[in-house]
Protein backbone atom coordinates (compact mmCIF):
# COMPACT_ATOMS: atom_id res chain seq x y z
CA UNK A 1 0.00 0.00 0.00
CA UNK A 2 2.56 2.45 1.14
CA UNK A 3 4.58 1.58 -1.91
CA UNK A 4 1.61 2.32 -4.12
CA UNK A 5 1.07 5.61 -2.38
CA UNK A 6 4.72 6.45 -2.82
CA UNK A 7 4.31 5.67 -6.48
CA UNK A 8 1.27 7.92 -6.68
CA UNK A 9 3.07 10.70 -4.83
CA UNK A 10 5.95 10.41 -7.26
CA UNK A 11 3.58 10.54 -10.21
CA UNK A 12 1.91 13.62 -8.72
CA UNK A 13 5.28 15.29 -8.25
CA UNK A 14 6.22 14.43 -11.82
CA UNK A 15 2.99 15.90 -13.15
CA UNK A 16 3.52 19.05 -11.07
CA UNK A 17 7.03 19.25 -12.45
CA UNK A 18 5.71 18.87 -15.99
CA UNK A 19 3.16 21.61 -15.34
CA UNK A 20 5.91 23.95 -14.16
CA UNK A 21 7.95 23.14 -17.28
CA UNK A 22 4.94 23.75 -19.53
CA UNK A 23 4.33 27.03 -17.70
CA UNK A 24 7.93 27.93 -18.27
CA UNK A 25 7.65 27.35 -22.01
CA UNK A 26 4.70 29.67 -22.32
CA UNK A 27 6.34 32.49 -20.39
CA UNK A 28 9.83 31.85 -21.81
CA UNK A 29 8.88 31.15 -25.41
CA UNK A 30 12.23 32.51 -26.51
CA UNK A 31 15.41 32.61 -24.56
CA UNK A 32 18.62 30.86 -25.45
CA UNK A 33 21.61 33.11 -26.15
CA UNK A 34 21.80 35.59 -23.30
CA UNK A 35 18.88 33.92 -21.55
CA UNK A 36 18.88 31.94 -18.32
CA UNK A 37 19.13 28.19 -17.93
CA UNK A 38 15.34 27.80 -18.05
CA UNK A 39 15.43 28.93 -21.68
CA UNK A 40 17.43 25.82 -22.51
CA UNK A 41 14.38 23.80 -21.50
CA UNK A 42 12.22 25.95 -23.78
CA UNK A 43 14.60 25.24 -26.64
CA UNK A 44 14.53 21.54 -25.95
CA UNK A 45 10.74 21.48 -26.14
CA UNK A 46 10.73 23.72 -29.23
CA UNK A 47 13.17 21.37 -30.97
CA UNK A 48 11.35 18.26 -29.72
CA UNK A 49 14.83 17.17 -28.83
CA UNK A 50 16.53 14.75 -26.53
CA UNK A 51 18.95 16.48 -24.14
CA UNK A 52 22.31 15.63 -22.63
CA UNK A 53 24.13 17.77 -20.11
CA UNK A 54 27.87 17.67 -19.55
CA UNK A 55 29.95 19.70 -17.14
CA UNK A 56 33.19 21.38 -18.16
CA UNK A 57 35.53 23.63 -16.25
CA UNK A 58 33.68 26.90 -15.76
CA UNK A 59 30.46 26.04 -17.63
CA UNK A 60 27.97 23.34 -18.54
CA UNK A 61 26.94 22.22 -22.01
CA UNK A 62 23.36 21.24 -22.81
CA UNK A 63 23.27 19.29 -26.05
CA UNK A 64 19.96 18.83 -27.82
CA UNK A 65 19.49 16.53 -30.80
CA UNK A 66 16.32 17.07 -32.83
CA UNK A 67 14.54 14.46 -34.93
CA UNK A 68 15.54 16.42 -38.05
CA UNK A 69 19.23 15.69 -37.39
CA UNK A 70 20.11 19.18 -36.12
CA UNK A 71 22.23 19.28 -32.96
CA UNK A 72 22.29 22.44 -30.83
CA UNK A 73 24.70 22.93 -27.91
CA UNK A 74 24.03 25.66 -25.39
CA UNK A 75 26.82 26.83 -23.10
CA UNK A 76 25.67 27.92 -19.65
CA UNK A 77 27.78 29.89 -17.16
CA UNK A 78 27.94 29.12 -13.42
CA UNK A 79 25.51 32.05 -12.99
CA UNK A 80 23.04 30.18 -15.18
CA UNK A 81 23.29 32.34 -18.31
CA UNK A 82 23.59 31.02 -21.86
CA UNK A 83 26.74 32.73 -23.18
CA UNK A 84 27.23 30.72 -26.35
CA UNK A 85 25.44 28.42 -28.77
CA UNK A 86 26.86 26.04 -31.38
CA UNK A 87 25.02 23.94 -33.92
CA UNK A 88 25.67 21.29 -36.54
CA UNK A 89 23.43 19.40 -38.93
CA UNK A 90 22.10 19.10 -42.46
CA UNK A 91 20.34 22.49 -42.15
CA UNK A 92 20.56 25.49 -39.84
CA UNK A 93 18.40 25.51 -36.69
CA UNK A 94 15.59 27.96 -36.00
CA UNK A 95 17.84 30.95 -35.35
CA UNK A 96 15.02 32.98 -33.83
CA UNK A 97 14.81 30.36 -31.10
CA UNK A 98 18.54 29.83 -30.71
CA UNK A 99 19.56 33.51 -30.66
CA UNK A 100 16.61 34.73 -28.62
CA UNK A 101 16.91 38.44 -27.90
CA UNK A 102 20.02 38.64 -30.15
CA UNK A 103 18.06 37.55 -33.22
CA UNK A 104 17.14 41.07 -34.35
CA UNK A 105 20.76 42.21 -34.16
CA UNK A 106 21.76 39.16 -36.21
CA UNK A 107 19.13 39.91 -38.87
CA UNK A 108 20.22 43.56 -39.14
CA UNK A 109 23.89 42.64 -39.46
CA UNK A 110 23.35 39.79 -41.92
CA UNK A 111 21.24 42.14 -44.05
CA UNK A 112 23.87 44.88 -44.06
CA UNK A 113 26.67 42.47 -44.94
CA UNK A 114 28.31 42.51 -48.30
CA UNK A 115 30.78 44.59 -50.23
CA UNK A 116 31.31 45.99 -53.65
CA UNK A 117 31.67 42.49 -55.12
CA UNK A 118 28.94 39.86 -55.11
CA UNK A 119 29.70 36.27 -54.15
CA UNK A 120 28.58 33.34 -52.06
CA UNK A 121 30.67 32.67 -48.98
CA UNK A 122 30.64 31.70 -45.31
CA UNK A 123 28.73 34.04 -43.01
CA UNK A 124 31.06 36.00 -40.80
CA UNK A 125 29.65 38.52 -38.33
CA UNK A 126 31.63 40.14 -35.55
CA UNK A 127 29.99 43.03 -33.75
CA UNK A 128 30.34 44.48 -30.30
CA UNK A 129 28.19 42.20 -28.22
CA UNK A 130 27.62 39.47 -30.81
CA UNK A 131 29.74 37.06 -32.85
CA UNK A 132 28.08 34.69 -35.33
CA UNK A 133 29.74 32.41 -37.85
CA UNK A 134 28.11 29.93 -40.19
CA UNK A 135 29.84 27.64 -42.66
CA UNK A 136 29.24 24.54 -44.72
CA UNK A 137 27.03 23.67 -47.66
CA UNK A 138 23.66 22.14 -48.45
CA UNK A 139 23.09 19.18 -46.07
CA UNK A 140 26.04 20.12 -43.85
CA UNK A 141 25.86 23.33 -41.84
CA UNK A 142 27.87 24.24 -38.77
CA UNK A 143 27.90 27.44 -36.84
CA UNK A 144 28.10 29.17 -33.52
CA UNK A 145 27.15 32.39 -31.82
CA UNK A 146 28.37 33.93 -28.61
CA UNK A 147 28.42 37.14 -26.64
CA UNK A 148 32.12 37.92 -25.99
CA UNK A 149 31.32 39.99 -22.89
CA UNK A 150 29.44 37.08 -21.33
CA UNK A 151 32.23 34.47 -21.53
CA UNK A 152 32.95 33.25 -17.97
CA UNK A 153 36.50 33.91 -16.83
CA UNK A 154 38.88 31.24 -18.10
CA UNK A 155 36.51 30.19 -20.91
CA UNK A 156 37.74 30.85 -24.43
CA UNK A 157 35.82 31.29 -27.66
CA UNK A 158 37.16 28.01 -29.04
CA UNK A 159 35.41 26.14 -26.23
CA UNK A 160 32.13 26.95 -27.99
CA UNK A 161 31.88 24.23 -30.60
Amino acid at each position, binding site marked *: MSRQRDGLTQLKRLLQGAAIVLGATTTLAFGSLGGDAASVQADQIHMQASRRTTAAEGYTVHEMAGANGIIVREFVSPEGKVFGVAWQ*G*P*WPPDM*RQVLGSYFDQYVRTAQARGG*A*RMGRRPLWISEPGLVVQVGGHMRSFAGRAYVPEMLPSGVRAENIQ
Partner: protein
Amino acid sequence: MTNSRRLLTAVTGLACAFSSGCGGGGSASKSNVVTQPGQNVAPITVNAGPAGNYANGAFTSVTVCAPGSSTCQTIDGVLVDTGSTGLRILSSALTLKLTQQESAGGNPVVECLPFLGSYTWGPVQTADVQIAGEKASAVPIQVLSDTDFKVPSGCTGFGVPSADTLGTLGANGILGVGFFAQDCGGACVLAATNPGLYYECPSSGCVLTGESLAKQVQNPVALFSTDNNGVVIELPAATAPAATLSGSLVFGIGTQSNNALGGAAVYTVDRNGSFSVSYKGASYGNSFIDSGSNAYFFLDSSITGLPDCTTDTGFYCPSSPQTLTATNNGLNGTSGMVTFTVANAQTLFANPSDNVFGELGGPSTFPGSGSAQNFFDWGLPFFYGRNVFTAIEGRSTPGGDGPYWAF
Protein backbone atom coordinates in the same frame (compact mmCIF):
# COMPACT_ATOMS: atom_id res chain seq x y z
CA MET B 1 34.64 15.20 -84.16
CA THR B 2 34.86 18.69 -85.60
CA ASN B 3 37.99 20.00 -87.20
CA SER B 4 38.62 22.36 -84.31
CA ARG B 5 38.33 19.47 -81.82
CA ARG B 6 40.78 17.43 -83.89
CA LEU B 7 43.18 20.34 -83.97
CA LEU B 8 42.86 20.84 -80.20
CA THR B 9 43.52 17.16 -79.54
CA ALA B 10 46.53 17.21 -81.83
CA VAL B 11 47.92 20.30 -80.13
CA THR B 12 47.36 18.76 -76.72
CA GLY B 13 49.10 15.59 -77.77
CA LEU B 14 52.06 17.63 -78.92
CA ALA B 15 52.18 19.56 -75.65
CA CYS B 16 52.05 16.29 -73.70
CA ALA B 17 55.20 15.10 -75.42
CA PHE B 18 57.11 17.89 -73.68
CA SER B 19 55.27 18.13 -70.39
CA SER B 20 54.68 15.86 -67.45
CA GLY B 21 51.37 17.46 -66.55
CA CYS B 22 49.21 15.64 -69.10
CA GLY B 23 46.67 12.89 -69.16
CA GLY B 24 44.15 13.45 -66.42
CA GLY B 25 43.18 15.70 -63.59
CA GLY B 26 46.53 17.39 -63.43
CA SER B 27 45.86 18.42 -59.85
CA ALA B 28 49.45 19.37 -59.20
CA SER B 29 50.34 20.73 -62.60
CA LYS B 30 47.44 23.15 -63.06
CA SER B 31 47.34 22.33 -66.78
CA ASN B 32 44.15 20.96 -68.22
CA VAL B 33 42.25 20.54 -71.46
CA VAL B 34 38.86 22.18 -71.82
CA THR B 35 36.34 20.22 -73.91
CA GLN B 36 34.62 22.10 -76.73
CA PRO B 37 30.82 22.67 -76.54
CA GLY B 38 28.71 19.83 -77.88
CA GLN B 39 25.74 17.58 -77.15
CA ASN B 40 26.79 16.96 -73.54
CA VAL B 41 28.84 20.12 -73.09
CA ALA B 42 27.46 23.53 -72.09
CA PRO B 43 29.72 26.57 -72.28
CA ILE B 44 30.33 28.37 -69.00
CA THR B 45 31.80 31.82 -68.47
CA VAL B 46 33.27 33.43 -65.40
CA ASN B 47 32.33 37.09 -65.62
CA ALA B 48 30.51 39.83 -63.69
CA GLY B 49 27.21 38.02 -64.20
CA PRO B 50 23.82 39.58 -65.03
CA ALA B 51 23.99 41.97 -62.04
CA GLY B 52 27.42 43.16 -63.19
CA ASN B 53 29.28 42.84 -59.90
CA TYR B 54 29.99 39.13 -59.30
CA ALA B 55 33.50 38.00 -58.37
CA ASN B 56 34.41 34.41 -59.31
CA GLY B 57 30.98 33.30 -60.50
CA ALA B 58 30.67 30.67 -63.29
CA PHE B 59 27.55 31.22 -65.37
CA THR B 60 25.73 29.17 -67.99
CA SER B 61 22.44 29.14 -69.91
CA VAL B 62 19.50 26.88 -69.14
CA THR B 63 16.39 26.36 -71.26
CA VAL B 64 13.12 25.71 -69.42
CA CYS B 65 9.87 24.71 -71.11
CA ALA B 66 6.31 24.38 -69.88
CA PRO B 67 6.06 20.61 -69.33
CA GLY B 68 5.32 18.64 -72.49
CA SER B 69 5.23 21.75 -74.66
CA SER B 70 7.49 23.55 -77.07
CA THR B 71 6.92 26.80 -75.19
CA CYS B 72 10.41 27.44 -73.91
CA GLN B 73 12.67 30.18 -72.63
CA THR B 74 16.45 30.23 -72.45
CA ILE B 75 17.76 31.92 -69.33
CA ASP B 76 21.36 33.03 -69.22
CA GLY B 77 23.41 34.16 -66.25
CA VAL B 78 22.61 31.05 -64.19
CA LEU B 79 25.27 30.31 -61.57
CA VAL B 80 26.81 26.82 -61.79
CA ASP B 81 26.94 25.47 -58.23
CA THR B 82 28.37 22.09 -57.27
CA GLY B 83 27.68 22.91 -53.62
CA SER B 84 23.90 22.70 -53.95
CA THR B 85 21.26 20.65 -55.70
CA GLY B 86 18.42 21.87 -57.87
CA LEU B 87 17.53 24.49 -60.46
CA ARG B 88 16.33 27.82 -59.03
CA ILE B 89 15.24 30.66 -61.32
CA LEU B 90 14.29 34.22 -60.44
CA SER B 91 10.59 34.80 -61.00
CA SER B 92 11.60 38.18 -62.46
CA ALA B 93 13.73 36.43 -65.12
CA LEU B 94 10.94 34.03 -66.12
CA THR B 95 8.44 35.04 -68.79
CA LEU B 96 7.03 31.53 -69.08
CA LYS B 97 4.18 30.02 -67.10
CA LEU B 98 5.26 26.71 -65.57
CA THR B 99 3.14 24.13 -63.72
CA GLN B 100 2.66 24.80 -60.01
CA GLN B 101 3.24 21.73 -57.86
CA GLU B 102 0.43 20.91 -55.41
CA SER B 103 0.37 19.11 -52.08
CA ALA B 104 -1.87 16.12 -51.38
CA GLY B 105 -4.40 18.63 -50.04
CA GLY B 106 -4.38 20.55 -53.33
CA ASN B 107 -2.41 23.53 -52.03
CA PRO B 108 0.59 25.08 -53.80
CA VAL B 109 3.96 23.77 -52.56
CA VAL B 110 6.48 26.51 -51.76
CA GLU B 111 10.06 26.12 -50.60
CA CYS B 112 12.37 27.97 -48.22
CA LEU B 113 15.97 26.99 -48.88
CA PRO B 114 18.67 28.23 -46.50
CA PHE B 115 22.12 28.96 -47.92
CA LEU B 116 24.95 30.33 -45.75
CA GLY B 117 24.26 34.04 -45.98
CA SER B 118 20.78 34.07 -47.51
CA TYR B 119 17.71 31.97 -48.18
CA THR B 120 15.65 31.52 -51.34
CA TRP B 121 11.87 31.46 -51.14
CA GLY B 122 9.29 30.67 -53.80
CA PRO B 123 6.97 28.12 -55.36
CA VAL B 124 8.02 24.66 -56.53
CA GLN B 125 7.03 24.35 -60.19
CA THR B 126 7.73 21.72 -62.82
CA ALA B 127 9.52 22.40 -66.09
CA ASP B 128 11.16 20.47 -68.87
CA VAL B 129 14.83 21.40 -68.62
CA GLN B 130 17.34 21.47 -71.45
CA ILE B 131 21.03 22.26 -71.13
CA ALA B 132 23.27 21.86 -74.18
CA GLY B 133 21.78 18.74 -75.88
CA GLU B 134 20.61 17.13 -72.61
CA LYS B 135 16.95 17.00 -71.64
CA ALA B 136 14.93 16.14 -68.54
CA SER B 137 11.14 16.14 -68.31
CA ALA B 138 8.87 17.47 -65.56
CA VAL B 139 11.68 18.56 -63.25
CA PRO B 140 10.62 20.18 -59.95
CA ILE B 141 12.45 23.52 -59.75
CA GLN B 142 12.15 26.52 -57.43
CA VAL B 143 10.89 29.86 -58.77
CA LEU B 144 12.30 32.59 -56.55
CA SER B 145 9.90 35.28 -55.41
CA ASP B 146 9.22 37.07 -52.13
CA THR B 147 5.85 38.29 -53.32
CA ASP B 148 3.93 35.33 -54.79
CA PHE B 149 3.50 33.79 -51.33
CA LYS B 150 4.02 35.54 -48.00
CA VAL B 151 7.32 34.43 -46.47
CA PRO B 152 6.46 32.46 -43.29
CA SER B 153 8.12 33.21 -39.96
CA GLY B 154 9.86 29.81 -40.08
CA CYS B 155 11.75 30.98 -43.17
CA THR B 156 12.67 34.44 -41.87
CA GLY B 157 13.63 32.55 -38.69
CA PHE B 158 16.86 31.43 -40.40
CA GLY B 159 17.85 35.06 -39.76
CA VAL B 160 19.49 35.68 -43.13
CA PRO B 161 18.08 37.91 -45.89
CA SER B 162 16.29 36.52 -48.95
CA ALA B 163 18.09 36.28 -52.30
CA ASP B 164 15.14 36.31 -54.66
CA THR B 165 15.98 39.31 -56.84
CA LEU B 166 18.76 40.00 -59.34
CA GLY B 167 20.29 42.49 -56.93
CA THR B 168 20.38 40.08 -54.01
CA LEU B 169 21.20 36.86 -55.91
CA GLY B 170 23.63 38.37 -58.42
CA ALA B 171 22.44 35.80 -60.97
CA ASN B 172 19.26 34.92 -62.88
CA GLY B 173 19.24 31.57 -61.15
CA ILE B 174 21.31 28.80 -59.61
CA LEU B 175 21.98 25.49 -61.32
CA GLY B 176 22.73 23.14 -58.41
CA VAL B 177 24.60 20.13 -59.82
CA GLY B 178 26.07 18.76 -56.58
CA PHE B 179 26.20 15.28 -55.07
CA PHE B 180 22.57 14.88 -54.14
CA ALA B 181 19.68 13.86 -56.36
CA GLN B 182 17.23 15.99 -54.30
CA ASP B 183 17.93 19.11 -52.28
CA CYS B 184 16.55 18.02 -48.91
CA GLY B 185 16.40 14.25 -48.93
CA GLY B 186 14.78 12.01 -46.32
CA ALA B 187 14.27 14.60 -43.58
CA CYS B 188 11.65 16.49 -45.60
CA VAL B 189 9.49 13.47 -46.44
CA LEU B 190 7.60 13.82 -43.15
CA ALA B 191 6.27 17.16 -41.90
CA ALA B 192 7.40 16.20 -38.39
CA THR B 193 11.09 16.07 -39.36
CA ASN B 194 11.00 18.71 -42.13
CA PRO B 195 13.67 21.20 -40.99
CA GLY B 196 11.78 24.18 -42.40
CA LEU B 197 12.20 23.71 -46.16
CA TYR B 198 8.89 22.61 -47.68
CA TYR B 199 5.57 24.36 -47.09
CA GLU B 200 2.08 24.09 -48.45
CA CYS B 201 0.34 27.39 -48.82
CA PRO B 202 -3.44 27.60 -48.62
CA SER B 203 -4.84 31.14 -48.68
CA SER B 204 -4.78 31.16 -44.87
CA GLY B 205 -0.95 31.04 -44.89
CA CYS B 206 1.94 28.64 -45.36
CA VAL B 207 2.44 25.62 -43.10
CA LEU B 208 5.16 22.95 -43.08
CA THR B 209 4.38 19.87 -45.13
CA GLY B 210 5.94 16.52 -45.97
CA GLU B 211 7.45 16.37 -49.46
CA SER B 212 8.28 13.04 -51.11
CA LEU B 213 11.75 12.58 -52.59
CA ALA B 214 10.36 12.57 -56.14
CA LYS B 215 8.52 15.87 -55.62
CA GLN B 216 11.46 17.69 -54.03
CA VAL B 217 13.54 20.10 -56.11
CA GLN B 218 15.78 17.80 -58.17
CA ASN B 219 19.28 17.80 -59.56
CA PRO B 220 18.33 18.11 -63.26
CA VAL B 221 21.43 16.16 -64.32
CA ALA B 222 20.19 13.10 -62.41
CA LEU B 223 17.01 13.23 -64.52
CA PHE B 224 18.70 13.48 -67.93
CA SER B 225 18.04 10.40 -70.06
CA THR B 226 21.80 10.02 -70.69
CA ASP B 227 25.02 11.37 -69.13
CA ASN B 228 23.17 11.49 -65.80
CA ASN B 229 25.76 10.26 -63.28
CA GLY B 230 27.57 13.54 -62.68
CA VAL B 231 29.30 16.55 -64.17
CA VAL B 232 32.76 17.83 -64.98
CA ILE B 233 33.63 21.51 -64.66
CA GLU B 234 36.51 22.52 -66.88
CA LEU B 235 38.09 25.93 -66.65
CA PRO B 236 41.57 26.96 -67.78
CA ALA B 237 44.17 28.19 -65.34
CA ALA B 238 43.92 31.82 -64.23
CA THR B 239 46.47 33.54 -62.07
CA ALA B 240 46.35 37.27 -62.77
CA PRO B 241 42.95 38.98 -62.45
CA ALA B 242 40.94 38.95 -65.69
CA ALA B 243 37.58 40.12 -66.99
CA THR B 244 36.38 36.73 -68.25
CA LEU B 245 37.32 33.07 -68.34
CA SER B 246 35.62 30.55 -70.60
CA GLY B 247 35.18 26.86 -69.93
CA SER B 248 32.80 23.94 -70.12
CA LEU B 249 30.22 22.13 -68.03
CA VAL B 250 30.38 18.54 -69.23
CA PHE B 251 27.57 16.11 -68.40
CA GLY B 252 28.25 12.51 -67.51
CA ILE B 253 31.33 10.75 -66.15
CA GLY B 254 32.82 8.07 -68.37
CA THR B 255 29.71 8.02 -70.54
CA GLN B 256 31.28 9.63 -73.64
CA SER B 257 34.73 10.00 -75.12
CA ASN B 258 34.86 13.55 -73.77
CA ASN B 259 34.15 12.87 -70.09
CA ALA B 260 36.49 9.99 -69.16
CA LEU B 261 38.12 10.15 -65.74
CA GLY B 262 41.53 9.57 -67.32
CA GLY B 263 44.17 10.04 -64.67
CA ALA B 264 41.89 11.90 -62.24
CA ALA B 265 42.05 10.62 -58.66
CA VAL B 266 38.74 9.75 -56.96
CA TYR B 267 38.08 11.23 -53.48
CA THR B 268 35.02 9.76 -51.79
CA VAL B 269 33.07 11.75 -49.20
CA ASP B 270 30.98 11.21 -46.08
CA ARG B 271 27.19 11.12 -46.15
CA ASN B 272 27.07 14.90 -45.73
CA GLY B 273 29.22 15.42 -48.81
CA SER B 274 32.43 16.41 -47.02
CA PHE B 275 36.00 15.11 -46.86
CA SER B 276 38.97 16.09 -44.78
CA VAL B 277 41.78 18.50 -45.57
CA SER B 278 45.01 18.54 -43.60
CA TYR B 279 47.02 21.69 -43.16
CA LYS B 280 50.10 22.19 -40.98
CA GLY B 281 49.57 18.85 -39.28
CA ALA B 282 45.92 19.35 -38.33
CA SER B 283 42.95 17.72 -40.05
CA TYR B 284 39.68 19.50 -40.85
CA GLY B 285 36.89 17.01 -41.45
CA ASN B 286 34.03 19.22 -42.69
CA SER B 287 35.83 20.36 -45.83
CA PHE B 288 34.44 20.45 -49.35
CA ILE B 289 34.79 21.60 -52.96
CA ASP B 290 32.18 24.08 -54.18
CA SER B 291 32.06 25.94 -57.49
CA GLY B 292 29.42 28.20 -55.92
CA SER B 293 31.80 29.59 -53.30
CA ASN B 294 33.69 32.51 -54.74
CA ALA B 295 37.14 32.06 -53.15
CA TYR B 296 39.35 29.65 -51.24
CA PHE B 297 37.76 29.92 -47.79
CA PHE B 298 39.83 28.26 -45.12
CA LEU B 299 40.64 28.41 -41.43
CA ASP B 300 41.46 31.78 -39.90
CA SER B 301 44.25 34.31 -39.59
CA SER B 302 45.59 32.79 -36.35
CA ILE B 303 46.32 29.49 -38.14
CA THR B 304 47.20 30.75 -41.62
CA GLY B 305 49.05 33.92 -40.59
CA LEU B 306 47.17 35.73 -43.37
CA PRO B 307 45.72 39.03 -42.14
CA ASP B 308 42.02 39.74 -42.61
CA CYS B 309 41.13 42.63 -44.91
CA THR B 310 39.92 45.75 -43.19
CA THR B 311 37.63 47.05 -45.93
CA ASP B 312 36.81 43.88 -47.91
CA THR B 313 35.88 41.95 -44.80
CA GLY B 314 35.61 38.20 -45.22
CA PHE B 315 38.77 37.99 -47.37
CA TYR B 316 42.49 37.74 -46.67
CA CYS B 317 44.79 40.67 -47.36
CA PRO B 318 48.42 39.50 -47.13
CA SER B 319 50.98 42.19 -47.99
CA SER B 320 52.36 39.95 -50.76
CA PRO B 321 50.95 36.79 -52.42
CA GLN B 322 51.44 33.72 -50.23
CA THR B 323 51.76 30.20 -51.65
CA LEU B 324 50.42 27.48 -49.36
CA THR B 325 49.98 23.74 -49.47
CA ALA B 326 47.24 21.52 -48.05
CA THR B 327 46.37 17.87 -48.52
CA ASN B 328 42.95 16.56 -49.52
CA ASN B 329 41.98 13.19 -48.02
CA GLY B 330 39.12 11.15 -49.45
CA LEU B 331 37.34 8.64 -47.23
CA ASN B 332 38.65 5.97 -49.63
CA GLY B 333 42.24 6.76 -48.60
CA THR B 334 43.12 8.84 -51.65
CA SER B 335 45.20 11.81 -50.73
CA GLY B 336 46.73 14.53 -52.81
CA MET B 337 48.53 17.76 -52.18
CA VAL B 338 47.17 21.09 -53.37
CA THR B 339 49.39 24.13 -53.84
CA PHE B 340 47.53 27.41 -54.01
CA THR B 341 48.26 31.10 -53.74
CA VAL B 342 46.39 33.75 -51.83
CA ALA B 343 46.92 37.39 -52.78
CA ASN B 344 45.66 40.62 -51.26
CA ALA B 345 41.90 40.84 -51.96
CA GLN B 346 41.89 44.61 -51.83
CA THR B 347 44.59 44.73 -54.49
CA LEU B 348 42.82 42.08 -56.58
CA PHE B 349 39.56 44.06 -56.51
CA ALA B 350 41.31 47.33 -57.51
CA ASN B 351 40.20 47.15 -61.15
CA PRO B 352 36.38 46.93 -61.20
CA SER B 353 36.39 45.36 -64.68
CA ASP B 354 38.16 42.25 -63.36
CA ASN B 355 35.91 39.36 -62.31
CA VAL B 356 38.22 36.33 -62.38
CA PHE B 357 40.45 36.00 -59.32
CA GLY B 358 42.52 32.84 -59.13
CA GLU B 359 44.23 33.94 -55.94
CA LEU B 360 41.26 35.13 -53.89
CA GLY B 361 41.05 33.68 -50.40
CA GLY B 362 39.29 34.34 -47.14
CA PRO B 363 38.74 32.90 -43.68
CA SER B 364 36.09 30.26 -43.12
CA THR B 365 35.94 31.02 -39.42
CA PHE B 366 37.10 33.38 -36.72
CA PRO B 367 40.45 33.33 -34.99
CA GLY B 368 40.31 30.89 -32.11
CA SER B 369 37.56 28.73 -33.58
CA GLY B 370 37.24 25.17 -32.44
CA SER B 371 38.05 22.41 -34.90
CA ALA B 372 34.37 21.56 -35.42
CA GLN B 373 33.85 24.96 -37.04
CA ASN B 374 37.09 24.98 -39.01
CA PHE B 375 37.09 23.80 -42.59
CA PHE B 376 38.41 24.26 -46.12
CA ASP B 377 35.89 25.38 -48.71
CA TRP B 378 37.64 24.99 -52.07
CA GLY B 379 35.68 27.55 -54.07
CA LEU B 380 35.81 28.45 -57.76
CA PRO B 381 39.56 29.33 -57.87
CA PHE B 382 40.22 25.63 -57.13
CA PHE B 383 38.58 24.83 -60.50
CA TYR B 384 40.89 27.13 -62.50
CA GLY B 385 43.31 24.88 -64.36
CA ARG B 386 41.79 21.68 -63.00
CA ASN B 387 38.97 19.50 -64.39
CA VAL B 388 36.79 18.60 -61.40
CA PHE B 389 34.35 15.67 -61.57
CA THR B 390 31.33 15.62 -59.21
CA ALA B 391 29.62 12.19 -59.14
CA ILE B 392 25.98 12.01 -58.01
CA GLU B 393 25.02 9.86 -55.00
CA GLY B 394 24.25 6.24 -55.82
CA ARG B 395 25.13 6.59 -59.50
CA SER B 396 27.50 4.16 -61.13
CA THR B 397 30.61 5.50 -62.88
CA PRO B 398 33.88 3.94 -64.08
CA GLY B 399 35.46 5.36 -60.90
CA GLY B 400 32.95 3.66 -58.61
CA ASP B 401 29.56 4.82 -57.30
CA GLY B 402 28.96 8.45 -56.37
CA PRO B 403 29.17 10.54 -54.35
CA TYR B 404 32.76 11.53 -55.00
CA TRP B 405 34.98 14.22 -56.40
CA ALA B 406 37.74 13.42 -58.86
CA PHE B 407 40.48 15.64 -60.22
